[in-house]
């Protein structure tokens, strides 16, 4: 059985890999299995984790949970074309909650907190410790400032303003470059992990 399992896994692995050469029946088969199995997986996982565990799992259900059930039922009314429009109510509810929550979360953690971290003495405690540290805190202030200027929509990027915006886009490009380097690192690691599976578990070449 174990052999069989490893071979199935290897067969599907190679099916996906074969797409790199070109689209082919092997890939199409793997893709169809993937779509079906994963849709089934989420269907089942949502049922047990979101509904069963909340209502049947022997604990006392919070009465407010029924609001969710009510909204869910309204959502399913979409299946009846004539009154399908009622499903906009739960949708409006979800969108309203999301907007409210995100507004606050991002305002506090991504805006306030990051502005706070940017405002610091230009010559910080590490100043003079090394060349890197000395330049570092100045770079942070200048980079964040000019980067924000780039995102101005209502002013033409001309003159000194334009020059600052230009500096900003340079910083953003360095950020992208660093991000790119890290992503390469990450993706290669994943491939290494997969090749480890093929060489070790499937072919048994490496102990």
């Amino acid at each position, binding site marked *: 059985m174990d052999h069989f399992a490893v071979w199935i896994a290897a067969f599907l692995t190679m099916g996906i890999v074969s797409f790199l050469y070109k689209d082919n029946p092997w890939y199409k088969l793997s893709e169809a299995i993937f779509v079906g199995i994963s849709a089934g997986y989420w269907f089942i996982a949502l049922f047990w984790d979101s509904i069963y565990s909340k209502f049947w799992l022997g604990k006392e259900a919070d009465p407010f949970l029924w609001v969710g059930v009510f909204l869910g039922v309204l959502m399913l009314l979409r299946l009846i074309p004539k009154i399908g429009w009622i499903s906009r109510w739960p949708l409006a509810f979800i969108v309203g909650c999301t907007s409210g929550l995100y507004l606050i979360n991002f305002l506090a953690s991504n805006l306030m907190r*990051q502005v706070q971290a940017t405002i610091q003495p230009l010559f910080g405690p590490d100043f003079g410790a090394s060349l890197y540290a000395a330049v570092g805190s100045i770079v942070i202030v200048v980079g964040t400032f000019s980067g924000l200027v780039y995102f101005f929509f209502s002013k033409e990027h001309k003159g000194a303003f334009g020059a600052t915006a230009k500096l900003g886009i340079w910083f953003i490009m360095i950020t992208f470059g660093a*991000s790119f380097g890290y992503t390469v690192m990450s993706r*290669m690691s994943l491939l*290494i992990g997969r*090749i480890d599976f093929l060489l070790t578990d499937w072919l048994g070449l490496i102990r």
Partner: protein
Amino acid sequence: MSTRMKELLTVAVIAVVSVILYLGKVQGWMTGFSFSPTVSYIVIAIITLALLYILYRTIQGKLVDRRTVFVFVAVGVSLPFFMSISQKMPISPEVQQLYEAVAELPPGSKVLVSFDYDPPSAPELQPMAQAFLQYAMRHDLKLIIMGLWPQGPQQANMALEVALADPEIVAKNLEYGVDYVNMGFQVGNEFVIQRMGSDFKSMFPTDYSGHPYEELPLLKNIRNFSNIDFSFNLSAGYPGTQEWVQVAVDRYGLKMGAGNTAVQAPMIYPFLNAGQLNGLLGGMNGAAEFERTVGLLGKGTRFMLSQSFAHVIVIAFILIGNVAFFLGDRKKNQ
């Protein structure tokens, strides 16, 4: 040859190769196969020559097909598996910072470890998880494990299995429920973190295998984050480190370190810089460095050679592409 014939031929070749591979595995023809250092250097030289050939072709104006690039990546990542070349590795400050934060915890401190990833990201995060759990157990830290991703607790169990097999840890006779617990998965993303901030138990009435909260001695005095001394978050995306920082660190003042996939890591640096995090492990390289700092070499270290190769190959292709671009440009200008 018609397309149909080609397809049939491909299927036949794959079938034959599969049979050979199967027999090879059953008979153990090549188990434990590896290159000697000399062979390793010859292989490296061949790869370099091949890259130079591609450069030559590109200069002549023939861009290679993307599939050639694919083959190089596959070969360049696979071959180092058979090589044994040792590499020196410097430790970056963010890894050192995490190590120090953990090392200064007194024995018996309660550490919350959240496993927020699934099997596809395991190559990067599993080595970190293993090294962290093993180090924590060797230093008598109490571990409370949980997951915001459904598959997280399974990954945690795999890492625990490895850690508990360590002879030094076996000697400590650690007991489930007293020295470590796995609380399992809970749906609700960042809202789980928020509820834990005020009431741990309401989110995890039972542990992964169904033991009630009250019956686990380790959890006796744990009501919320104020009872946790340190937390370590292993994250591959949403929900992950950003959400932990937004809720647990910013609102409840939890002390936290993080291990991230390399893709996530750059986004986490502003949090590190703002002092919201105590240390960060980024990607497999972070894992390897951490393994070195705590002196527990594992898969992270072993895979670093492949990682080096892969990076060099990608850089080589960027350079080759740019050579083609500049030469092409010059031609256009003439």
